[in-house]
């Protein structure tokens, strides 16, 4: 395990050395003093977070740590109690076209009467704006995205007839079709088989190679060093954020999860 981990670490170091050089760091997302509360009980407390452009970042933390809430607050889906968020220096509502969002798979009703292609087309709605309808161009983009995630043969399948992994690929295709600069994904690996997980992470790595910023709520700590080059530890408060090789260690894991952790990469 340790040998493998070292190897993986070496690979991921190679991958992100250029992105982390401080001289040309552009901030994709900046979160200042963000506090979010449900019924006056804070679920995120005074979060400061800077996400540099071009990283593939995992947000990790225990259940109820506010990982999904953080994404939703950044995207303006939840109204924060305090604090502010900027995307490339401007508020989110002015930068919508730069951002794609993949909600948790369980947050939608998969019995909804629609097809895989139609769900992917929804990704184009943002650039269309109100009232205007998707046309040939949007359909072509959606078909290309389906192709990329290997779901083209299923384009006319009703979404309830897809397996969990296929549904997640459809969601990913819908984000790809948005052709954004920043991708937020809420647990894209939840309930998917190993093949799909690899397919998804490969696409995410491709996105990063193309200079995109990808932010993923992630649960499987074992795969963090293998999949990601940047990580944020969250548990209501921000514990740490930075390159995986610098901060993914027992100390931060213990601070975040509250129990002694010995799974991480050895220094």
């Amino acid at each position, binding site marked *: 395990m340790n040998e493998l981990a070292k190897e993986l670490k070496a690979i991921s170091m190679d991958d992100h050395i250029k992105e982390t050089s401080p001289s040309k760091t552009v901030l994709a997302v900046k979160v200042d003093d963000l506090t979010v509360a449900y019924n006056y009980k804070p679920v995120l407390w005074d979060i400061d977070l800077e996400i540099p452009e071009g990283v593939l970042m995992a947000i990790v933390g225990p259940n109820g740590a506010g990982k999904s809430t953080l994404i939703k607050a950044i995207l303006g889906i939840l109204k924060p109690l305090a604090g502010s968020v900027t995307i490339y220096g401007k508020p989110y509502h002015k930068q919508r076209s730069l951002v794609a969002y993949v909600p948790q798979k369980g947050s939608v*009703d998969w019995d909804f009467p629609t097809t895989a292609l139609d769900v992917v087309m929804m990704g184009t709605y943002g650039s269309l704006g109100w009232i205007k309808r998707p046309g040939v161009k949007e359909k072509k983009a959606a078909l290309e995205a389906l192709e990329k995630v290997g779901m083209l043969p299923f384009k006319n399948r009703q979404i309830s007839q897809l397996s969990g992994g296929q549904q997640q690929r459809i969601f990913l295709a819908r984000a790809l079709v948005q052709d954004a600069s920043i991708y937020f994904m809420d647990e894209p690996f939840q309930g998917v088989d190993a093949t799909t997980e690899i397919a998804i992470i490969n696409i995410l790595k491709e996105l990063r190679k193309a200079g995109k910023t990808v932010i993923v709520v992630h649960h499987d700590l074992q795969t963090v060093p293998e999949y990601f080059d940047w990580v944020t530890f969250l548990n209501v408060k921000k514990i740490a954020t930075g390159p995986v090789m610098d901060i993914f260690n027992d100390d931060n894991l213990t601070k975040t999860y509250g129990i002694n952790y010995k799974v991480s990469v050895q220094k």
Partner: protein
Amino acid sequence: MNSAQFEIQLIASLVAIACAIPGTFLVLRKMAMISDAISHSILPGIVVGFFITQDLNSPWLILLAALTGVITVALVERIQKTGLVKEDTAIGLVFPALFSIGVIMIAKNANDVHLDVDAVLLGELAFAPFDRLTIGGTDIGPKSLWVIGTILMVTVGLLIAFFKELKVSTFDPGLSASLGFSPLIIHYGLMTVSSVTTVGAFDAVGAILVVALMIAPAACAYLLTTDLKKMLGLAVLFGVFSAISGYWLAHWIDASIAGSITTMLGVVFLFIYLFAPSKGLIAVIYRDKQQRIEVSLLTFLLHLKNHTEERERHVNHLCEHINWQKVRSQTVLDLALKNNMIHINKNIVTLTEKGDDFTSQAIDYIITNEDAQIEDMKDDFFLFRG
């Protein structure tokens, strides 16, 4: 058919269409009970509006009463947000309160108001043709026809304009919000349309039928299609069918039109619930039976594949070996023979090449759960249709 009969059917059909459109989205948003709440709680709005305008078909009355409907939704959400009770409880708290206020207001002012509780609950469709709209002395048709016609045109216009917004916010509110289509605005837009439609239809068909016309056609359509546009079309079709057939049922048995239309909605739903091709009760029972047989077949084929010794593959011993009764073994054996998956030589069963391939493929699928490989097997076998 005289002109009054025609007008009644026309009004009933337009009401059905106007209800089916918001109804489809209410059903998909799992908010069917909200339409019940709206239809009852607009009563005080109608009564107050009637005091002010003295005209049941006045646009002001309709807007005022529709506002009560939207307030109902807001109140329900407010109570729900406290986290003290669930949504259905919140609905159950709000609408009887508002409805009873309306009932008391009618009772206290019975002499001045041409409204009674019967009419409120069941409508007065039969009298609709007698309340005419005249412009400069010319009769241009029943008032309620114009009211519901106008509402329907606005509803259809909004549906066409905001179809994609309605779809995305119903399917995935999170994405909708992140794209800039506020789910809250769309939600209250839909609630406003539902309220206006309810008020407009209220006078003609009453509080109970409005709910039925919103929910039943959409529920029928939901069982038949996997396409939102088709679902809307089918809901409209079932609504109109029930409206017209209900009218003639009432004519035939000399009963309430509203009651007969509601009955027809129930009959149509029952029929579709039984006979819908893939989600219907009979289809489900048939499919379960087929699947049971096919799983047995697969078990049987796998047994043959795993055992080369003749003892295990002797026709007479098969039922012992896989622990089945004779009848079931016979059915499975026949099915396998019919599909050329086995051949029997001197009472020893052997897999054919086709049977062997099929078994490997099927096992592969079950182990990997990879769909692509078995696309072409799906037509022959229920088992893989999910």
